[in-house]
Structure formats: structure tokens, C-alpha cells
């Protein structure tokens, strides 16, 4: 249990100082990213033809002018952007144009829990399936139990969610008719198909990463030593090898979660789930300027944060990296 000991002794103040420095430095770099995201989104939504108040019933020009005035849409764009930024920094993302009386924060608050739940289940599903099949494959290199999970994982990578989703619906929702095909939390079991659809691609990637990581570790001396000492194989695999073998998976966790949020657009559209992905697409079509901006900021923030967290986690779990203090 050398490594365990090493962990305790290598958590000095120095480490946390470096960690804080590292996080602060990264957060500092978020500022330009956020600014670019906000201004690019801002100018793009305003350049899009049609405005938030265009409707079937053609409002008179006088009324449209009034509406634009009410929401300061007649000001120069740069002034509008400035005002938006000032308010956004204070946490005010403005009113929704499509839903008068609702604020952007309110709408996001109603959709975000659903997306987070979906992403959480999907990542859990992907981890369980991916890591398990990766381990199985790595323990049987070149054998049937290697090819089977790895071929299936190739399917996971190559069958995109726009195909997997409808096909799952066709099989389980229509032909066998045992699972609901849309919604979230409205009928029992309606969370299963979206979870699988969103998670499967990542399950496949995790499987490959775990297999690769495990193969590398299993070939190392300390595993051979452990086996030679007659340690229980389960113990060797799960307590000694997995710790290193799962590193590539953990390294990919951040990008994966970020990717899950992007992927939720598709899955929420296919299964008509009212999460923020679907809000986002609809807001773009509705020209709900403030809602688009709000969700852009949120998604960018999540993406950056998860990548950061995953980097920290990977560094923390990897003794080699940690001791070298390579987090700069």
C-alpha cells in the first residue's frame, strides 16, 4: 500500500497553493472566452432575419416600434451589448421575449434540472457499461470476450443518436410497446431510452479508454508482483490495476460531460424533453434573444468548468503528475 501512504504525505500546503493558483489562472482565461461567446452570440442573433415580436398576426409598425422601444432594441447594438453585460455580471439575464412576464433565469431554472438529470444518468450509464466492458475486454485480450464488447462499442461510436434514438423508439416504443417514447418523468420508464441514446456513444469511448488503460497497467511490474504474491485476482484487478487503468477514462470525463450537454440538443429534440437543449434550439428559432444568450453563457460555463474539474481530478488521482506539480 505504498501509494496510499504517498498520497497522504504529498498533500502539503504546497499542493493546495498550486491548485488554487491553477484554478484561478484557468478561471481568468474564462473571461475572454465568455466575452467572445456573448458578443458573437449577441451579434449573430441580432443579424438573424425576423425579430422576437414578428408573428402570424402582423402588428402595425407603430406597435412594433413601441415593443422595440420597451426592450431597448432601438438602441445601437453596442449599447445594447454593454447594457446586457452590465446586467449579466449582476446576475440579471433579462426578460424572455417569447414568454412575457418570465425571466430568462426562471426559464433556465425550469429546464436545467431536467438536462442535468439526463446528463447524469447518461454518464452513469456510460461509465458502468463502458468501464465494465473495458475491464472484461482487457482481461481477455484477443479472445472472444475482447472482441464482443469492443465490436459493440464500435457500434456505439458509429450509430449516432439521431439514428439510435428513433430506432430504439421504433423497437421498444412501437413494435414491442413496452417503453414510453417521449417526455421526462411523465410516465414510468420514460427516462430509459433517452439515457441509453445519450449515453451509448460515451459508453463505447469509455470502454475503449478503459481497455487501453488497463492493458497498459496490467503489463506493469507491480501487478505482476501482486499476482506473484498470490493476491486474489479480483483484488488485483479492482484495487490495483483499475486505479491506474481508469485514468484515461477520468481524463476524458470532463470533455465527455461537456459533450453530453451538447448532445442533449439532439436527444431532447428526439424525445421532446423540455430541457435546456430544446429550449436553446427553440429560442434560436423564436429569436428569443435574451434566452439564447442566457443559455449560451450557461453551456459555455459548464463546458469550461467540467473540463477544469476533470483536469484537477486527473492530476489528483495520478501520483506521477501530482508529485511533479505539473498542473501549470
Amino acid at each position, binding site marked *: 500500500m505504498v501509494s496510499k501512504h504517498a498520497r497522504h504525505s504529498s498533500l502539503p500546503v504546497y499542493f493546495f497553493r498550486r491548485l488554487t493558483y491553477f484554478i484561478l489562472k484557468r478561471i481568468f482565461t474564462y473571461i475572454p472566452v465568455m466575452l467572445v461567446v456573448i458578443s458573437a452570440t449577441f451579434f449573430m442573433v441580432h443579424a438573424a432575419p425576423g*425579430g422576437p415580436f414578428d408573428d402570424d398576426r402582423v*402588428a402595425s409598425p*407603430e406597435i412594433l416600434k413601441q415593443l422595440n422601444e420597451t426592450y431597448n432594441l432601438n438602441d445601437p447594438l453596442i449599447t445594447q451589448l454593454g447594457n446586457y453585460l452590465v446586467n449579466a455580471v449582476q446576475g440579471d439575464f433579462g426578460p424572455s421575449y417569447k414568454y*412575457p*412576464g418570465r425571466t430568462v433565469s426562471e426559464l433556465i431554472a*425550469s429546464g436545467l434540472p431536467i438536462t442535468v438529470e439526463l446528463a447524469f444518468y447518461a454518464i452513469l450509464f456510460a461509465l458502468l457499461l463502458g468501464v465494465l466492458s473495458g475491464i472484461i475486454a482487457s482481461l481477455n485480450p484477443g479472445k472472444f470476450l475482447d472482441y464482443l464488447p469492443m465490436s459493440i462499442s464500435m457500434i456505439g461510436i458509429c450509430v449516432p443518436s439521431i439514428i439510435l434514438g428513433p430506432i430504439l423508439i421504433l423497437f421498444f416504443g412501437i413494435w414491442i410497446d413496452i417503453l414510453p417514447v417521449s417526455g421526462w418523468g411523465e410516465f414510468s420508464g420514460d427516462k430509459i431510452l433517452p439515457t441509453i441514446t445519450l449515453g451509448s456513444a460515451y459508453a463505447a469511448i469509455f470502454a475503449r479508454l478503459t481497455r487501453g488503460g488497463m492493458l497498459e497497467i496490467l503489463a506493469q511490474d507491480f501487478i505482476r508482483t501482486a499476482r506473484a504474491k498470490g493476491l486474489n485476482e479480483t483484488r488485483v484487478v479492482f484495487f490495483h490495476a483499475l486505479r491506474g487503468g481508469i485514468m484515461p477514462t477520468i481524463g476524458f470525463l470532463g470533455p465527455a460531460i461537456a459533450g453530453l450537454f451538447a448532445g442533449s440538443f439532439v436527444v431532447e429534440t428526439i424525445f421532446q424533453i423540455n430541457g435546456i437543449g430544446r429550449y436553446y434550439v427553440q429560442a434560436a428559432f423564436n429569436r428569443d434573444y435574451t434566452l439564447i444568450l442566457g443559455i449560451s453563457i450557461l453551456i459555455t460555463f459548464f463546458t469550461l468548468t467540467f473540463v477544469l474539474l476533470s483536469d484537477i481530478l486527473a492530476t489528483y488521482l495520478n501520483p506521477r503528475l501530482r508529485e511533479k506539480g505539473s498542473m501549470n
Partner: protein
Amino acid sequence: MKKISLILFVFAILSCSSQESLDVESANKQGILLLDNGTEPQGLDPHIVTGVTEHKIIIALFEGLTMQNPKGEGIIPGAAESWTISSNGKELLFKIRDDAVWSNGDPLTADDFVYSWKRILTPALGSKYPDMLYAVKNAEDYNKGLINNFDLVGVEALDEKVLKVTLRTKTPFFLKQLAHYATYPVHPNTIEKFGGISNRDSQWTRPDNMISNGPFILSEWSINKVIKVNKNDKYWDSDNLKLNGIHFFPIDNESTADRYYRSGKTHNLNIIQTEKISKYKNEYPEEFKLEKYFGTYYYRINTDIEPLNDVKVRKALSLAIDRQILVDRVTKGGQKPAYSFTPPSENYYDPPTYLPYDPSLARTLLAEAGFPDGNGFPEFELLYNTNEGHQKIAQAIQQFWLKELGIKVTLTNVDWKVYLDRQSQGEFEITRAGWIGDYVDPNSFLDMMVKDRGNNMTGWSNSQYDEFLMKAAFSESEKDRITYFTEAEKILMDELPIIPIYTYTRVYMLKEEVKGWFPNMLDTHPYQFISLED
């Protein structure tokens, strides 16, 4: 192992339903109507919103001076128990019910109506429906900011319960417009409390804030989940209310809605999926409803552009469309081929116009216009907003025109806002369009095609047509009015600046225990008349 218990845990979460909702049977016992209401409403402010979804909730919460007659196209008294109309038809006196009160007990007064109409006409509020009151003297000028003194607008409170309305001209359908939610009253003190008369983003429509005068009061509003209303005990006719509450579910997915209905979570299925129509019709004839709807699907032609400015070309385009096969084979939703702009109604207005399918006549006309077999006819663009239904129809019509006339059409589908934008800028050749009347009167369709009306957008005008509509507005008898409308309709169908395709129908399911739900062309079903049988 930990992992296995974790898997079990996850699947336990995945498989359990997160909310307990009422089923139809227990709802019947409690007198609660469970409605599939399409999508999440934009809002519940009667002066701001514009949609059908919103309409269905707002008529439960508020009540106007008049009310849609559930059994037909006319109106019945609402918050006003009676009214008198002066002999020139310009002055109306409404007697508001003595027992009509707001849900907090305040009496509903004539002043409340004056305030409410002032509100919807206030330019800064930016309401999309102020034209529902444009018949009122000076209302349009006030709304457009030409006058700033609301006293000049033809509405005043003679005393607490008497409202006097002065119209700019005789308007036979004004009483029908008063059944529309845009003319409904709102509670002045509440409006003032939450940001004043011109605040669009007011919080007054939230459950704890809203004071309303309709048969129900708002009790819960969860975004994308449910809107619940409870019986309003202070409603003047609450003794006759049979429902104790209504739950409106915003289910915008047709297949989810279908599941809701089949598993007994709603009393109705708002839209039946096309492929299930014939099945449901045969298997559940008692629950299946196919009703006429006051709407027309049509193609709008830009008549400012060559060669579409030639009436012969427009006629040829219309003659080449087989509407019957289009509704039978393409739309398949029980729609009726449209042969007039205004949807016909046997007991009211049934224009004798007809738009035949006659390819050979179409070719002749096209040749007369200078394009034999479509030779030399410029390729033009058919614009529609992205939607599977519009797409199928557009592709079918594209094919009709190519095969019968040799005319090439490119299809352009753009998203909704781009479509609206291009249409209002006149940047189109032919676009798909749909219109649903706000009140059952030919005027709600035909007025649109008068010269320079905002929704005309075809560039077409005809002085004779405009004259007929003017005459209809001033005509003394209902019969004359209908005659003038019919003449106008004939002109329209002869010149075809718009090509009607089909008349909308409503195809839905309704549980048998829902009583007092009568078919009508506006698809309005006042909840005051609805009851649930066990």
C-alpha cells in the same frame, strides 16, 4: 458488490415515475377536467398573448361582456347581463351584472372596462390584438399615438354598472369581438400594483397575484408541467358551475399526448396523429371528433411580380391543383378542399364559389397568357416555413404545376421568423399561409384582402371588392350583408391573389363522460357548460 447495488439503484430511479397525477376516473369524481392543451402558453395576460392555447386557459379565468355561444356561432351575455344598441348602430349601452365581482370580492365595474380597454390600447403595452377594439371611436388613433387623451376614445362609464361604447361606424360583429379575450377586463388595482398599465413583463398573472373575474381562479402554474385552476366561488353564476377545477397540460408532443389520453391522464386528445385517425375513428366512434374549424390553408401570391400579376396565370395555377387528392392522399387529416377564402358554414354563409381541378383549361389559360406548355415561364420560388406538413403539400403542388403546366418551382423552406420577415417585406413569389378567424364572420377573412391591410401582403387590390366590403359594413340587414360578402368572395375567387387549398378541421378525441362540450367552428368550449359524468 457495490457496483451491482448502484446499478439497481439507478434503474430504480429510471423506472419510477416522478410525479403522481390524477387519472380520469378520480378526476371525474372530484369534478376536475384534465385537458391536453398543446404547448406551454406564452403567458396568461389577456392583453398580451395571441394564441389558441392561451385562449383556452384565459376563458376559464376571465369573462368579457359577451361570451361565445357554445352551441353555435353567435354570442350570449357574459359579464354584461343585457345591452341596448342605438338605432344608428353606433352607440351601445352595456348593463354589467350586479353580482359580477372580482375573485377578491371587489365589484366588477364599468370603470374596470374603461381601464382595461385603455390598457390594451396603450401603445407602450405593445398588444398584438388592439384591433379587436378598433371599431370603437378613436381607439385606433389612440393606439397609434395620434391622440393622447383617452377621454376622446368612445368608451365611458355612465355609472358603476353601465358602460357606454361609441363606435366609429356601425359594426355588426362588434358584439362577437367582445367575446374575444383581447377585450376582457383586468383588475386595475392589481395591474397598478405590478408595474402599471404599460408593463408587459408584469408578474400579475402569477398564481398568488392574479385577481380575475371568470368562473375559475388560477391556483398553480408550473412551466411545461401543468396549469391548475379552481372553481371561483365568487363568480356570479358559480351555483351553476359543475366543474370544481381544470388542469391544463402543455403536451407539445403528439405521441406523448396520445399516451396521456390512452392511459387515462387527460379527458381529451388535442390532436390525433395522422396515422391513427382512421383507426381511432373506427375503434372509438363515440370519442372521435371531426369538426369544421374556422380556418383556411392557402397560398399567397405576390401579384406585383411578372408573370404572377396576370390573372390567367394565377387561375392556371389554381386549376392545376387537385385539392381532393391533396387532402385524401397528402394531408390525410380529414381536411376539406377549400373553394372559397372564408370557410363555409351551411347555416350562415356558404359562398357559391368553386375552384375546379381542370388541367386542360389550366394549360389553355397558360397558353393564352403567353406560356404554351409552360415554355418561357420563369422558374419561381415557393416559400414556406419549415414543417413536415407544409413540406408535403408544397412538394405535391410543385409536382402538380410541373406535370400539368410545365412550370418549374423551387421550394424554399425557412424557419418561422425568416418566413414572416420575408413575407412582410414582400420578398416572395408564392408563400404558404394559414388563417384562423377570431370571430365567426366573413369579415374576419375578407377584410384582410382589402387594399393595404397589414395581412394582405399580396399587393393585390380591387376597388370593387373594397366597395363591397364597405357596403357590407354599412348594410342595414343581415341578408344584404351576406350578399355583399358573397359578391366580394366571388371577385376574390375570380382574381385569385390567394389560392385556397383546404379548410381546416379539428380532429380530436374526447372522453364520453365530458358533457356540455358542443361542436362549433371556433373550437371554443366555455367551461361554464361542461360537466363530468361518473
